[in-house]
């Protein structure tokens, strides 16, 4: 079955081609069915492959399709690698992707047929690229997918391209990603220069402890910079909140569940290299933690329902990087999985709310939606509980695993991590409280239109809600139930080498119990605080915020800081080059040559008097010169 893995990305590609080429002729229902069916087919194939990979004793399979690049020593096959890690991502991408496609058929219903088809074409192309990214058996194929998802992200953020702001957001995302991509690309070159191959199998088998630690640190740092671009980490995270300009299902699929986890996948895939580069791991842990705290603090003061979720995504990605940094690869991948469930759920819930509110996104103008939209409300609550990390929802297990590993690594990381988790709990329940609790604060018109969303929207919500509840049970920690961590065992072959290189620290079960219960109590406390504080919020309470709140509302002024230290100087240099170097230097040179030739020819033209005498005179002078040259300077010619 694993030989048929190429079918998985092929279905979305076919869907993309059909929808993209036939966007002007296909009727809307057919477009939705094609787009969703392609994902369903991929999901079924992925399940079958998963079934095969699940059997004990399965070892990674490489499926060679054709030679992609074969020049000199460089040999890049177009090959897919089927192992536990890629299969897990296949399931997440196609599964969540399918639900979001179904959801989109209803959510995007107001679009014109051709842009409806364009939307599904882009979405299918995205899934194709993402599958390429996780399936590739070498860094080049991964990079192709990496660029493909970046392109689709750009296209979908700017889906409503008639709005200039959205285009700006799309451009910002693209440029930010490019910065990271460049580092990634250099990293790949370096890998090739160092190991003579870009295939995972060759590279990882050559990476040995102690061998050229500086080189490994350099390579891994470059790859990590690539990951910060794609996965929205400090300093390249500012594009993700702006990326909320795209349609909400896009935010759910690309900017929460799948694409932004590409960086985590890449580092988890390269875990062998990272385990040999402890310095890079330290950097990753610190940056992940800082991102988690920073984004969480910003989320507290945001009023746009999608912005809150966006910053929460950045923050959760920070946790995943923290996990990678402390060597908890399984925990990070685990968190990717659970996060895909509950964050997709939250985004889709938010989309349902926005849909009902007729496009309104400001949570201060919502409230009391619980009684109008019961399904959305309940599923959203489950999502909030999951992301806050309440037992026994999915987020609890994955976050707990990362944090306990962080504790084993360094208790300081743990304390700061818990701080971020508390903030998460607070802002999520602030969000829930403002949206669903209390009284409705919008206009009467809006209140009149409030309704529960159709089945195509609620069913994916329910499915994702169920997954958000049970999704964490595949990774029950050792201290609660021995040998219950199914995921860890499943992924063991992938991370075996790095566990040998850097064995995970052990913590006593009693300490773990104490930490878990202590943090759980705190989190529940913050959830309640967040909920109660904003339960009876009224618009009258809105006033100009001051101090820290103002700073948080303005996102720590990071965009302004970037503007001042990067954009402005570059603009200035560009302006200087444009106005001074270009206008005076280059234009002057070019025009000067032209003017010189014009002037010269105007003067020389006078020689062409048409008078034979002068021509003869010049001819004689020419003959004399030729004679002189020929007779007295024979070496010149």
């Amino acid at each position, binding site marked *: 079955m694993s030989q048929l893995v190429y079918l998985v990305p092929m279905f979305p590609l076919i869907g993309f081609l059909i929808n993209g080429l036939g966007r002007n002729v296909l009727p809307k229902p057919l477009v939705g069915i094609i787009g969703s069916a392609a994902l369903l087919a991929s999901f079924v194939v992925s399940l079958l492959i998963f079934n095969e990979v699940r059997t004990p004793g399965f070892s990674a399979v490489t499926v060679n399709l054709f030679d992609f690049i074969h020049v000199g020593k460089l040999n890049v096959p177009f090959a897919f690698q089927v192992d536990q890690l890629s299969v897990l991502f296949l399931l997440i991408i196609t599964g969540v992707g399918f639900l979001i496609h179904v959801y989109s058929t209803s959510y995007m219903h107001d679009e014109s047929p051709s842009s409806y088809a364009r939307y599904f074409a882009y979405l299918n192309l995205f899934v194709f690229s993402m599958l390429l990214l996780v399936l590739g058996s070498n860094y080049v194929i991964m990079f192709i997918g990496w660029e493909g998802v970046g392109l689709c992200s750009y296209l979908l953020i700017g889906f409503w391209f008639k709005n200039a702001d959205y285009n700006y957001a799309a451009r910002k995302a693209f440029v930010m990603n490019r910065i990271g991509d460049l580092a990634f690309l250099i990293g790949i070159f370096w890998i090739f220069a160092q190991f003579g191959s870009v295939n995972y199998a060759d590279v990882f088998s050559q990476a040995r402890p102690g061998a050229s630690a500086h080189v490994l640190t350099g390579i891994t740092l470059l790859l990590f910079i690539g990951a910060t671009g794609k996965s929205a980490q400090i300093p390249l995270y500012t594009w993700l909140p702006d990326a909320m300009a795209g349609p909400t299902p896009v935010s759910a699929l690309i900017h929460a569940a799948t694409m932004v986890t590409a960086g985590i996948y890449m580092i988890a895939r390269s875990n062998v290299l990272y385990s040999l580069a402890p310095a890079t791991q330290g950097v990753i842990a610190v940056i992940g933690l800082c991102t988690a705290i920073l984004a969480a603090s910003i989320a507290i003061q945001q009023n746009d329902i999608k912005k809150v979720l966006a910053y929460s995504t950045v923050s959760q990605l920070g946790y995943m990087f923290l996990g990678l940094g402390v060597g908890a690869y399984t925990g990070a991948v685990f968190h990717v999985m659970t996060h895909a469930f509950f964050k997709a759920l939250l985004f889709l819930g938010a989309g349902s709310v926005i849909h009902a509110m007729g496009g309104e996104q400001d949570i201060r103008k919502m409230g009391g939606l619980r009684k109008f939209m019961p399904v959305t409300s309940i599923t959203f609550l489950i999502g909030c509980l999951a992301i806050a990390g309440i037992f026994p929802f999915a987020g609890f297990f994955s976050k707990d695993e990362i944090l306990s590993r962080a504790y084993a690594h360094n208790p300081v990381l743990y304390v700061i991590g818990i701080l971020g988790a508390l903030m998460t709990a607070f802002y999520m329940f602030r969000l829930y409280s403002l949206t669903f609790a209390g009284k409705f604060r919008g206009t009467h018109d809006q209140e009149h239109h409030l309704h529960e969303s159709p089945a195509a929207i609620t069913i994916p919500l329910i499915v994702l809600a169920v997954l958000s509840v049970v999704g964490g049970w595949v990774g029950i920690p050792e201290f609660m139930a021995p040998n219950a961590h199914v995921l860890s065992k499943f992924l063991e072959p992938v991370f075996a080498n790095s566990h040998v290189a850097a064995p995970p620290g052990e913590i006593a079960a009693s300490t773990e119990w104490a930490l878990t219960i202590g943090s759980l109590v705190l989190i529940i406390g913050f959830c309640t605080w967040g909920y109660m504080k904003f339960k009876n919020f009224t618009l009258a309470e809105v006033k100009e915020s001051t101090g820290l709140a103002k700073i948080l509302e303005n996102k720590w002024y990071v965009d302004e800081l970037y503007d001042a230290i990067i954009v402005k100087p570059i603009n200035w240099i560009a302006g200087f080059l444009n106005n001074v170097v270009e206008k005076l230097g280059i234009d002057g040179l070019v025009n000067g040559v032209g003017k010189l030739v014009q002037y010269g020819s105007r003067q020389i033209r006078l020689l062409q008097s048409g008078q034979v005498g002068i021509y003869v005179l010049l001819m004689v002078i020419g003959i*004399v010169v030729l*004679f002189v040259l020929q007779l007295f300077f024979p070496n010149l010619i």
Partner: protein
Amino acid sequence: MNVTQILFWLLSALTVFSALVVITRKNPVYSVLWLIITFISISGHYILLNAQFLAVVNVIVYAGAIMVLFLFVIMLMNLNADAEPQKNKWLQFAGVIAGGCLALVIIAALKNVDAKARIAETGSDIGLIENLGKVLFTQYVLPFEISSVLFLSAMVGAVVIGKKN
């Protein structure tokens, strides 16, 4: 200094002088007359070089026929010193300088020619009409016949050009 040498110097002086007069006279008729003198002195050189036939042909064809043709044309046009167009002084100066430079350059280049390649003072009879005739009608008979075609075409050309439209 024997007779040949004296004659050489005399003839050379006459040639150069008359040539200079040719290009400096304003009246074209004088120029033509002095040019005839130049050609005759060149014929004298030919005799010194034992090219008797060429000397005679030169006098007959050049000094005789061609220069008479020139004279006819000048008379026909009634040209005289008053009608003579004058060139710009600077241009004349430049022309003299350029021509002088050309002479200087060529002489400077050729001044080291092997002086031992002397021209024998002895006479030779290759320049006699008998010998030249033999060569002309055996070895060079084809060019000789073709040159008659050339004359014919030149005549036709002159007639066509000179005809009134």
